[in-house]
């Protein structure tokens, strides 16, 4: 119908339409590489992960795994691993909170007070990335070691008992996580703070707001996109991390990643997959809830 209408009323100049169609095609062509990448490396693995979580739990590598739609895998996995699952979410929440507490003043100082030191300070924030994640975590083992100088000093001033230790405690694991993910918090915070129009803050003091009120009502709300991005970039990877728990913790600090890795190696694919999907779902729900509450207009 509309095609016929087009033919009979040649009002729309032909070249414009052609250009529009061409532009649209270009847009889709530009989406193609990214789309293919996502299908190949995100959708396919995700589907196969969900499938694996529903395989017959009595299968083995020797006999193979059949698809039996065993939704019960989820019930079993959650019943057996509720503790490490909850612990992972709790640790990553703590990590995110500490990163925010440490990262905000740092990002604020770099954005507003650093002057000509700005670039140097930013480089220092990124500097740890020049060493591997594993090496950095292992160095914490040296620092916090039972006979290292940190523990010795803390024992001398009686903060730690004569038998107290830092390594292999919850504190060590959360410290390690905080340290490893801090740059992911600082950088987006800095990007947000940097963009703030200084005249708005000046306006605050012009209107007789105290420094704290200006911060609370002007600076912080304007930095919100950075806070949201930073907390997400910290929380999500921290929940799946298992290196810190492995190297700095004890069995009592095991996170869900440790269990998934071991189950996978043991050939218990369905349980391992069910736990992975559960973790993903839990994170997605938490993040969606959080993003709805915090608002992300400027994020996307």
């Amino acid at each position, binding site marked *: *119908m*509309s095609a016929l*209408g087009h033919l009979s009323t040649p009002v729309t100049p032909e070249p414009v339409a052609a250009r529009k169609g061409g532009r649209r095609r270009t847009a889709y062509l530009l989406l193609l590489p990214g789309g293919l990448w996502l299908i190949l490396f995100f*959708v396919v693995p995700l*589907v*196969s992960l*969900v*499938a*694996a979580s*529903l*395989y017959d739990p009595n*299968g*083995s*590598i*020797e*006999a*193979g*795994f*059949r*698809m039996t739609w065993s939704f019960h895998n989820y019930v079993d996995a959650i019943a*057996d*691993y509720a*503790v*490490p699952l909850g612990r992972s979410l709790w640790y990553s929440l703590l990590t995110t909170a500490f990163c925010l507490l440490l990262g905000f003043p740092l990002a604020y100082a770099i954005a507003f007070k650093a002057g000509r030191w700005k670039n140097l300070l930013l480089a220092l924030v990124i500097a740890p990335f020049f060493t591997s994640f594993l090496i950095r975590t292992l160095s914490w*083992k*040296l620092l916090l*070691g*039972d*006979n290292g100088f940190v523990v010795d000093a803390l024992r001398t001033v009686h903060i730690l008992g004569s038998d107290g*230790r830092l*390594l*292999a405690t919850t504190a060590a694991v959360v410290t390690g996580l905080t340290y490893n993910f801090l740059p992911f918090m600082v950088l987006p915070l800095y990007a947000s703070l940097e963009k703030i129009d200084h005249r708005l803050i000046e306006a605050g003091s012009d209107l007789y707001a105290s420094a704290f009120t200006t911060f609370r009502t002007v600076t912080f709300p304007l930095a919100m996109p950075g806070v949201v991005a930073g907390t997400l970039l910290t929380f999500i990877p921290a929940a799946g991390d298992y290196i810190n728990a492995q190297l700095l*913790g*004890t*069995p*009592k*600090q*095991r996170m869900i990643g*440790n*269990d998934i890795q*071991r*189950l*996978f*190696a*043991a*050939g*218990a*694919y369905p*349980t391992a997959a069910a736990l992975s999907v559960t973790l993903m779902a839990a994170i997605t729900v938490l993040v969606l809830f959080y993003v709805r509450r915090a608002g992300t207009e400027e994020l996307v």
Partner: protein
Amino acid sequence: MRSQPVRRRTVLRGLGLSALGLTAGGTLAGCGIPAAKQSADSCLSTDKSAEQKTLIFSNWPSYMDESDEKVNGQTVLPTLVEFEKRSGVKVTYTPDINDNAEFYAKIRDQLGACQPCGRDIIVLTDWMAARTVGLGWIQKLDHSKIPNVDKHLLKQLRAPGWDPNRDYSVPWQTGLTGIAYNAKFTKEVGSFADLLSRPDLKGKVTLLSEMPDTMSFMLKLTGADPAKFNDAAWSKALEKLQDYVGTGHIRRFTGNDYVQDLNAGNIVACEAWSGDVLALQADNPNIKFVVPEEGLAIWSDNMLVPNKASHKANAEALMNYYYDPEVAATLAAWVNYICPVEGAQQAMEKVDPELVDSPLIFPDSATLEKSTGFMALDTAKAKLYETDFNLAIGG
């Protein structure tokens, strides 16, 4: 008239949803992982050793003698170089096996589908070797080509339950699992009962994350035989372990990395492998290895030729070469594990007279009698026990 144009977002959303629906319904139902069991008939391998004088050898780290000086920045492996000279076979040697379960995860998809895994010799510990042999993934060896093995292999190692005629496997090195402690920080720890209950050791001991090693001792502590036990005994041993984990007595479950913690004094005693401890002792005389009252756990790491490896004859030549007592002694003097080759002790006189009486390289028969191996498990049992063990060592 013009119909309301369909909004792009709606179209995309519709497409996305139907794609999701299709995937969920169709793809998921079609999923599954086929059985990985192979047999000599289902998976044929051809030997190209005659034309191709090459061999790809994957082994564990620190498991091959190294000379002190480097040539062109490369570490020289003297016994291996000698083999290349004698046989004319060029060996690609990679120490890329760190953990049995991890390495298994690396090769199982290829071997399960009868595809080459890119290696002619792999080295796996008994329990894992048993699993791969059970799955039919390993080629049968031609004993006429390995006369040295038949002649010199230690009596105690000739007939393991999972390969009674050594048709598929040849031990590379053998080792003992026992207790190590750091004498600078604690007095002697003589048994696993002590290690796991002495109050001064609380939070300062580690156990190994290799299930057979640790469970061997739990089974012994609960009065069972690790070489032959049933599900009830297993559950009892597992409960015992859970108790120790629950009290916080055990600090961690580790792989080889207990070595650094023990050396630094972060832990003062642990379950340990004999060769590691000997190597550590050379730098730190405070480190001691103890034969626990419960006895030792003995294991071997075995050379295997996987299916589709195309240089089996070359691999057999290498196995035969390393069972020459003199070569074996040279290797043992460097790696410090138990030498599975009879006659190497005499040959050691020439290589390093100090090591001739080392009880951890050439243990006497009394020590060997006190040592037990771990029962071979089929994959279903192995998965069950590994999963149990995993739950138990989590806090």
